[in-house]
């Protein structure tokens, strides 16, 4: 019986070895050798060079700001969705997921067309004799792209944690004398923290590693760490440096996940 069950795990086991473990080992292998194949820490230390550390810092800053904007937009929306009757909210949830059915690249390119100097938004603004907007190729455009693309990943987990909440728990808080604000701060928000944490992770991590959004909406002026790594692999053909920087990025992702896990634990009931 036991061997039969482990047999069922076979396909996934094969998958994870072939496409997760081996590539990971290869990244680490390339990251710790130089072009002659000798062991080195230079590729890791390369993060300290001004251009690399700047790219990493910009990445962290922009993903952090995007995550906060996503959270601020998503939480009230998730609350509204969770309070709706099932028929209504299925429609609204669909509206939010609908853009995700469109190709990621296409959506981002669409924003480029909208934001360009002679793009749709500026045409409309000019038509009304309003000053034109110059946010293409700025950090603001990248943040906009990140928020637009990753917002559903923040809404859905928060919505799930709110919708799963027992209505009577909220009723019990009212019953014990709490008003709406007290109920929200002491009961609803603490109970939704697991959803918030997974939402934050699902927005922050892809935002930190993206290179497509910054390439399309940031022009070549703003380099994120994702763009640097991509260039090392595709243009400079320096796999060793690319792998080394990837490892550094991985460490930052693991760090951010540890921080959110700690926040989750302490966050329970700690508000107010």
């Amino acid at each position, binding site marked *: 019986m036991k061997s039969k069950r482990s047999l069922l795990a076979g396909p996934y086991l094969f998958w994870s070895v072939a496409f997760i473990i081996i590539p990971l080992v290869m990244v680490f292998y390339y990251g710790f050798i130089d072009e002659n194949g000798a062991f080195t820490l230079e590729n890791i230390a390369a993060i300290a060079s001004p251009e690399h550390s700047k790219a990493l810092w910009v990445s962290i800053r922009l993903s952090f700001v995007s995550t906060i904007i996503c959270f601020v937009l998503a939480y009230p929306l998730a609350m509204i969705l969770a309070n709706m009757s099932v028929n209504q909210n299925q429609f609204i949830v669909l509206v939010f997921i609908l853009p995700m059915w469109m190709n990621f690249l296409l959506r981002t390119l669409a924003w480029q067309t909208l934001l360009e100097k002679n793009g749709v938004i500026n045409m409309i603004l000019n038509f009304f004799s309003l000053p034109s907007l110059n946010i293409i190729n700025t950090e603001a455009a990248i943040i906009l792209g990140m928020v637009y693309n990753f917002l559903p990943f923040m809404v859905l987990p928060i919505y799930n944690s709110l919708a799963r909440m027992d209505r*009577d*728990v909220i009723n*019990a808080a*009212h*019953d*014990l*004398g709490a008003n709406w604000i007290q109920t929200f701060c*002491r009961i609803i928000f*603490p109970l939704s923290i697991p959803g918030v944490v997974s939402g934050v992770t699902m927005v922050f991590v892809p935002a930190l590693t993206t290179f497509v959004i910054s390439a399309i909406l940031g022009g070549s002026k703003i380099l994120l760490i994702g763009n640097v790594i991509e260039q090392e692999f595709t243009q400079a053909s320096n796999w060793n440096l690319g792998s080394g920087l990837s490892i550094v990025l991985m460490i930052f992702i693991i760090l951010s996940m540890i921080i959110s896990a700690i926040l989750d634990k302490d966050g329970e009931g700690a508000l107010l």
Partner: protein
Amino acid sequence: MSNKLINLSGINKSFDGTMVLDDLNLYIRENEFLTLLGPSGCGKTTTLRIIGGFETPDSGQVFFNGEDITNLPPNKRQLNTVFQKYALFTHMTIAENIAFGLKIKNKSKSYIDDKIKYALKLVNLDGYEKRMPHQLSGGQQQRIAIARAIVNEPKVLLLDEPLGALDLKLRQDMQYELIRLKNELGITFIYVTHDQEEALTMSDTIVVMNQGYIQQIGTPEMIYNEPENAFVADFIGDSNIIDATMVQDKLVSFLGCKWACVDTGFGNNKPVDVVIRPEDIVLKDAGQGTLDGEVTHVIFKGVHYEMEVMAGGYEWLVHSTSMFTVGQKVSISVDPFNIQIMNKPESEDEEAVQIEE
């Protein structure tokens, strides 16, 4: 005991066009253990939620101590609720759960600590302060839910099928516990259940409800011994309900026989329903009683034998401590005092009974 603490007046409530409560009028006296009893969908929980403030009636008013509280939110009402699935705050310790209402009211720390100790002692869970709700069994969680409510010293405690999820033994223990609590605390209990045994055991007053109407209000003894209609008789305990004709005062005719009874004032030759409890039927040897028949089923139930007797074209349910065998010829006899006469449903209120049957 005579002071009307809560008064519901002309309450109507419907959900999505379905009438749940229809012109409900009910008062609850101070220090009373009142049970709302009925099958699911009878409106008992909705009534409780209207008293608690979680639902607003479509029309009608709720008075608390003479004051109209119909539109007062739950957090402003002087009553607390114990919810069906406990509704404990899973992210807080037991002590924090119990302290919740007191912290909202800005009580001092020493007051809160004393209250937590007192409440845990009251529900026999001393020393559980630091545990989390998920570490407790269902029965223990239920006690915490009760403790969390009573530390606020409410005038009224509302309980929504609080024992529904517990097993039989635990449920019986908790029934005695609740009676003890009520007597110790001296607060009014409004209790919702579909379990008639629970209602009979604990209540001072039982309100039997069906399809949004109150069927009967009375003490457990009144409800059991003198059900006002067939629904109440059928819902409370086992019973034989038979179509009959009231021949004259103290004489009723059914299944082709005339039976002496003690009821008067139903008029002459009026159609009525007769209720006879299975334990009130005396089985005698054939020819010795009022109606002869034959035993068709016998089941041993522990305290008594449950038997079915075919007599006069009706299958009688009989409880007896003496055993009869299947196929045995017997004769049914009933003490006139144990024949309960009920009016046939006439009014709209009682029509609900017919649909249910």
